[in-house]
């Protein structure tokens, strides 16, 4: 049973957090950077590690592991920063996410993607677009736009985004899967 809104073959960037493999739509990814030093921002939330300079523009860095309730990301040789573009309402915001390792860009057909089970997952299913199967390996496809609430994004980007269009964090978390 395929996921309803995935009708064509799409490309996904796969990466690793701890031992789990995640994937995001490659369209959302702007680039992948080697780990560089992060400038800390005072009074930011825990998962917000700070900011970096990407070719002149300030990009906030979030710790995906913290966001998903894992331990804090430690720097290794393979640690990367995935620079993503997230849609919040009508705006597009650039944020960086820390990943333990970036694997590859893969093609996934719609029939290879299953919807997320509603029980037995430690992830809030709203964040998950579906589960990709690849050579007996599961890839959790993230709905990256839904992971960060409007307020969080506003906190990260310094409140430039208008609040009127954005749903409340609770609404975002409990939004019914379309």
């Amino acid at each position, binding site marked *: 049973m395929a996921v309803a809104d995935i009708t064509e073959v799409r*490309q996904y*960037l796969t990466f690793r957090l701890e031992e789990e493999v995640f994937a995001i739509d*490659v*369209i959302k*990814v*702007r*680039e*992948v950077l*080697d780990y560089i030093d992060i400038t800390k921002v005072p009074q930011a939330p825990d998962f917000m590690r700070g900011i970096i300079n990407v070719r002149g523009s300030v990009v906030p860095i979030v710790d995906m592991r913290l966001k998903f309730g894992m331990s804090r990301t430690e720097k290794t*040789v*393979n640690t*990367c920063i995935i620079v993503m573009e997230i849609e919040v309402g009508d705006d597009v915001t650039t944020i960086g996410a820390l990943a333990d390792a*970036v694997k*590859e*860009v893969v093609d996934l057909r719609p029939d290879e993607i299953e919807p997320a089970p509603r029980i037995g997952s430690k992830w809030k299913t709203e964040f998950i677009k579906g589960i990709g199967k690849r050579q007996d390996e599961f890839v959790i496809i993230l709905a990256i736009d839904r992971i960060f609430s409007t307020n969080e994004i506003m906190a990260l980007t310094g409140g430039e985004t208008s609040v009127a269009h954005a749903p409340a964090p609770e609404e975002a978390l409990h939004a019914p899967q379309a």
Partner: protein
Amino acid sequence: MLKDISIGKKLFGGFLVVLALLVIVGAVAYTSLGNASKGFTEYREMARDANLAGRLQANMLMVRMNVKDFLITGSEKDKQQYRDYYKRMSGFLGESQKEIQDPERAKKIDFVDDQVGEYDTAFKKVMDYRTQRDDYVNNTLNVKGPLMENTLTDIMVSAYADKDPTAAYYAGLSMKHLLLARLYMAKFLDTNDRKAVDRVHEEFEKMQKQLEILDKEVENPRRREMLGTVVDAKALYLSTFDSLAELIFNRNDIITNTLDRIGPEIAKATEDVKLDIKSVQDTLGPKLQAANTRSVTIVMTVVIVAIFAGICLAFFLTRGITNPISKGVDFAQTISKGDLTATIDLDQKDEVGILADALKNMATRLRDVVGNVRESSDNVKSMSENVKDAAENVSSTSEEMSASAEQMSQGATEQAASSEEASSSIEEMSANIKQNADNALQTEKIALQAAQDAQEGGKAVNETVSAMKEIADKISIIEEIARQTNLLALNAAIEAARAGDAGKGFAVVASEVRKLAERSQNAAAEINQLSSSSVDIAERAGNLLTKMVPDIQKTAELVQEISAACNEQNAGANQISTAIQQLDQIAQQNASAAEEMSSSSENMSTSAVQMSSSANEMTSQAESLQDAISFFRLDESSSITAAGASRPMIKTKRVVVSGARSGLKQKHRAPKALADTGNGNSADQTPVDSGVNLDMSTSSDRKISDDDFTAY
């Protein structure tokens, strides 16, 4: 004689003398101080007496002054003052009588006391007279005088009124004489002159004549009556005056004869007392001063004498004790050095003298003992000569014995044959040993080469290790590049994907590039792992090689030692072969000598018996010597006598212990003992270590003696 007194008595005597001097000093000082104190007390008493006398005198003077005042004024105040001063003077007088002890002065004071009493009575009489005089003057004279005058005036006035000029005239004349008489009376009262008294009498006589004439002339009854009054008054006046004059004269007599005599007498007596005291003080003061000065001089002299005597005593006593003691010490030290010829020259009978005598006796006894010891040692020497003779006998018999040793030669010949065989096998052995040595030398060379090679191998391994480490470094660079390439390919894939269909081809290329990068990354990781493991192995190999090097070197050294041992063995084998050859010869000689030896052994035994008897004698001699020496109680310090005594003793002991042994041996041993005790006489000495040294073939004497040992 001072020398014959004991040290204790000398010391006691010295301290006694010093103590006696101290006692003298004390006694002199004590008596001098006592005298001075007594003189001072006496002097002070005198001063007090003089003071008392002075005050007595002063009060007496005050008394006298008051008496004079009273005589002039007659006032009650002066009388009172007189009484006061008199009382005080009496008090001082009483005190003086108590205080002043000197009999002469006391007598004077008693005299003064008497005189003062007399003075007082006289003065009291004078005072009575004065009262009486006043009574006369005031109650009679000064009453009757004006009465007569008034009566005569009345007569004159009445006569004049009656026109009786004669009566008036005579009355006037009488009046004149009366007035003159009264005038002289007053003058008398003032001057107490006898002329005035005469004049008063004269005037009264003249007045009498006039009154008689008047008596004839007056007929008026009233005037006659008045005349009678005058005559009566005149008679009373005259008689009163006469008694007054007499009273005053008596008083004056008392004043001049008693008061004015006694006063100066008292003054003189007190003055005498004072002067007497003063003169005594004047003599006593200088005397005391002189006595004090003398005492100081005496004490100082005695002290100086005592100090000088003490120093002299200390000096002589110290010298008297230390001189003989040091002599005794010198004597004892000389004897302790072993010089018994020393003498001590001390002629005194104190402890030191006794000590010197004891030392002298000791020296004589020592001399005797040493003489005894010398005699005994001489005896022992002669005994030892006897022993020597016996030993010579033994030696001659042993020469005979040497002939009999030839019998041994046969066995020895056989011995020689077998020893030749031994010699040939030994030569064979030596050849083998030589080959061994050569092999060892070669082995050593090879081992050294191996050690060197191992060292080089270790070095090569180390180089390899460093090279591999470098490779690992380089490979990690490659790994990094592969990773970067991977990332780049990923980004390229992302770009291609975002480009949609247009990027599809590029995406394939990027994917391929990424795969290549991944492969190279994996390969690099594998190489890295391999190189790190081979580094470990190489390091282990290097360690093993470096551990091997000292082992190989040790092997080389051991091989070297083996070769050296082989060489030594070779030399030893050679020596053994020569020794066997020598043994062969000796055995032949021994064989011949042995024969003779057996026959002469009997003779030797008899001489040995002789020798043992003389040795016994020598032992007894040595014992007597020991007795003599035990009396002497020898210390190691008295080495000369000890050495002299012990020399023959050693000999004797040797004889006793090894009595049956050969005399020749004794002959050689005895000089050795002499050499041990440090004497010369070692010119012909050759060390005899028989039995150990193989030097048997050089001297026939020694060979025989050796045989002698085997025979027994």
